[in-house]
């Protein structure tokens, strides 16, 4: 059985030198990063982490059933989360942040080694338990990094899709949607929905889809564009696609996709002229 009192006491007792050993190990492993973090703060926060860890060990199971999802580990997880955020903001890599936690192993092992010959102390299992705990905490720190990055990626993706599909009212009954950047299926879907919504709200009879800024498309996206045009027609509007790149024209033909009843024009000007004409409008040059 791992001896949790021994472990917890070793962590709380200042004379065992675990804190000093940890800080020394941190700088030896090159994960201390006193270049970006304040020296006194590192010491203070390391000390607090050890204290919180000792509390958690006191209250939780540390044998094979160790599970840091249990509530006893919440304080240390909260602390580590804050620590990981602080370190990430300081530009410290996830490997270094995990290394910072793992560096704690060495002083803990040194401390336990002193008891290996003592009567009634299961040093091997206590050592294993401490190793398990520290590993779990290091993994948790890594995960915090990943979660934060995932959240950032998700937010940026959302912002990008929102930013990239504005529907512009060009004229009465004419809307245009300029597309920029590579279209993936999700964005293509978004474009479809936005354009069809705009046809309703703006009572547009003509919807111009300008894909000048789209470098390439795949089968799914090409089909999606065609679906958009077909759906617009069913709603009583006409879809005009303009700015098709030579490459995209080749892809569409090679993929064997038909463009039935879809008006295509070389550029936005051509599309506008077509829409004006169909809407019974004409452009007249001013007399000089």
């Amino acid at each position, binding site marked *: 059985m791992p001896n949790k009192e021994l472990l917890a006491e070793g962590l709380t007792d200042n004379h065992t030198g675990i804190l000093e050993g940890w800080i020394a190990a941190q700088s030896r492993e090159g994960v201390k990063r006193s270049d970006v973090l304040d020296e006194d703060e590192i010491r203070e926060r390391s000390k607090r982490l050890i204290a919180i860890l000792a509390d958690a060990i006191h209250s939780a199971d540390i044998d094979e059933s160790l599970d840091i999802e249990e509530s006893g580990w919440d304080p240390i997880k909260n602390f580590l989360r804050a620590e990981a955020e602080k370190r990430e903001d300081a530009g410290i890599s996830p490997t270094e942040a995990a290394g910072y936690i793992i560096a704690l192993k060495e002083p803990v092992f040194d401390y336990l080694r002193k008891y290996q010959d003592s009567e009634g102390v299961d040093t091997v299992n206590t050592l294993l338990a401490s190793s398990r705990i520290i590993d779990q905490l290091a993994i948790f720190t890594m995960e915090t990094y990943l979660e934060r990055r995932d959240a950032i990626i998700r937010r940026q993706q959302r912002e990008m899709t929102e930013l990239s599909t504005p529907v512009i009212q060009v004229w009465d009954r004419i809307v245009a949607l300029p597309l920029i950047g590579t279209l993936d299926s999700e964005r293509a879907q978004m474009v479809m929905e936005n354009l069809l919504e705009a046809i309703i709200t703006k009572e547009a009879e003509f919807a111009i889809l300008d894909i000048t800024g789209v470098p390439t498309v795949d089968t799914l996206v090409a089909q999606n564009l065609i679906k958009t045009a077909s759906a617009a027609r069913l709603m*009583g509007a006409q879809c005009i696609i303009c700015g098709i790149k030579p490459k995209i024209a080749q892809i569409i033909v090679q993929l064997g996709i038909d463009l039935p009843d879809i008006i295509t024009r070389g550029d936005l000007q051509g599309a506008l002229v077509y829409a004006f004409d169909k809407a019974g409008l004409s452009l007249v040059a001013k007399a000089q």
Partner: protein
Amino acid sequence: MTTSYPSNSKVGTFRIRDCVLVTVNNEIDDSSVLEMESNLTEEIVRLPTRGVVIDISQLDIVDTFTGRMLGALAKMSRILDARTVVVGMRPAVAITLVELGMNLNDLETALNVDHAMRRIEEASAEGP
């Protein structure tokens, strides 16, 4: 303007001058479709009719059955020499029909009743 309401009033058929306006909603089912078809065709021949406008803006659920029904209604009216325009299709309905592969290519569509009526009037002003 004369108006005839079908007995179950799931589908309304209205006459506006020489056009017939049909409104379709979600509660449409097999039996009401048959009733609507007979109501509409009878109304078209009852008085001189130039156009039929089928308003489906109340319809937000669609399947192949409804899609086929729209196509059939349009075809029947056309046989009776009335120009047929489907109006007010919602984006979700349009997407679903396209996803189901029902492009309904020979169906004339317009944004709303106003647009459709104007188009029918313009066409008749130009002469037969």
